């Protein structure tokens, strides 16, 4: 009989015993192969920042202890000033900055999503609680400080042509090119979550950041708003905006006003 002869040929008993484990092994190998191939062919996602602005994140980032932060901030004073106003133009002023904006930057330094030879090691040494407490301290500082401790802010006023260009961009943006007004997100008209106020920022720092966004050297803005806008601005406009904010004109009541 044919069945008998073929069973003898295949050693049917062994075949039957191994059929299920063999199929399972084959299946597992195929799945693993598919997963490995998938991992090899898919380009990795480019992630600007690991932060997700959920209500829980915002609550956790806002629950800092400003007193403990004031003790930790002794380390920061050399560069960022004892009153949150930096004595160096290329270092940001932190006084009165929105707490979520500060928290996001420290977290991004910690995750190496924003690059800085100075700030990355410092942020690495901070625990999540340290970051929240420092942020609470700097956010609580007044934005008007003793001029004796605050030597370089505000800087000299820009020439009138530059001031007019900056005021127009801050108040109206440029609809033709699709540049939104700065004050719609950076205040004083409106803020988005995690966006810094620029009214008391140093001009050198602002210019450096705009250049870095335009060249994608800094790429930690979620959904690329600043990389897009900085690339749309001309070199002259970036300079004008940095000078305008650096001279303290963003603090004027009613926000920016447009000269005729």
């Amino acid at each position, binding site marked *: 009989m044919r069945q008998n002869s073929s069973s003898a040929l295949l050693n049917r008993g062994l075949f039957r015993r191994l059929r299920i484990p063999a199929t399972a092994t084959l299946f597992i190998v195929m799945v693993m192969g598919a997963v490995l191939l998938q991992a090899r062919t898919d380009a990795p996602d480019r992630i600007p920042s690991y932060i997700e602005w959920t209500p829980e994140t915002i609550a956790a980032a806002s629950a800092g202890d400003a007193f403990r932060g004031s003790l930790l901030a002794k380390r920061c004073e050399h560069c960022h000033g004892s009153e949150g106003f930096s004595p160096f133009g290329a270092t940001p002023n932190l006084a009165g900055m929105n707490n979520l904006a500060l928290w996001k930057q420290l977290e991004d330094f910690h995750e190496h999503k924003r690059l800085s030879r100075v700030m990355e090691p410092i942020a690495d040494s901070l625990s999540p609680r340290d970051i929240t407490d420092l942020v609470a301290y700097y956010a609580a500082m007044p934005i008007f400080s003793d001029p004796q401790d605050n030597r370089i802010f505000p800087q000299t006023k820009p020439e009138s042509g530059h001031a007019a260009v900056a005021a127009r961009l801050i108040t109206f943006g440029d609809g033709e090119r*699709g540049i939104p007004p700065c004050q*719609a997100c950076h205040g004083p008209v409106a803020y988005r979550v995690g966006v810094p106020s620029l009214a008391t920022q140093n001009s050198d720092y602002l210019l450096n950041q705009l250049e870095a966004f335009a060249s994608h050297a800094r790429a930690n803005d979620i959904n690329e708003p600043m990389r897009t806008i900085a690339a749309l601005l001309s070199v002259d406009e970036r300079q004008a905006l940095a000078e305008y904010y650096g001279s303290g004109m963003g603090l004027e009541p009613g926000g920016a006003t447009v000269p005729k």
Partner: protein
Amino acid sequence: MNWRKLRTFILTVLILCLIPATRYYQIDAPLLHWLHGSSRVNPLSLHLAGEFVENNLGTQQDADGSVTVRMIAQQYLFVPHCIMVPAGVPIHFRVTSADAVHSLAFLGTNYLVQALPGTVTEAQLNFPHPGDYTFPCREFCGAGHYAMRSELKVLPREQFPALAPDERRNCAAK
């Protein structure tokens, strides 16, 4: 139960069914997923995973000759800021919002695409004539709304560069 009560009950149920029927694209039901895929996304985590991560935005060449364009609308700009498509080719336009409701009004055409947070809007567009089409935001979305506008560059089909399967294109050098 008499007929009157039953009739009232049935009418109430029918009227209640009308509410989800007008918002069917926002219903998160397994049956709908099975029928045409989930259109739900988390507007807060578009940048972390899924089809709207940075390096997946822009124009993608599909195998059948059509193109897929993925875009995020946010306060107060569209990303990518300028997109590029070939003329006369079906465009699967997929857009979502990261914050408020926005809408894209393609000037010179009758296309109007709404971008809703939490939902992927898919529109089938086709631009037969090459040219530059401006699309401002047509849904008031906040303080910078009036400056929110982007550009769609429609190139003749032979000028549109051939894209690799994992390549995404916008007007700025890829």
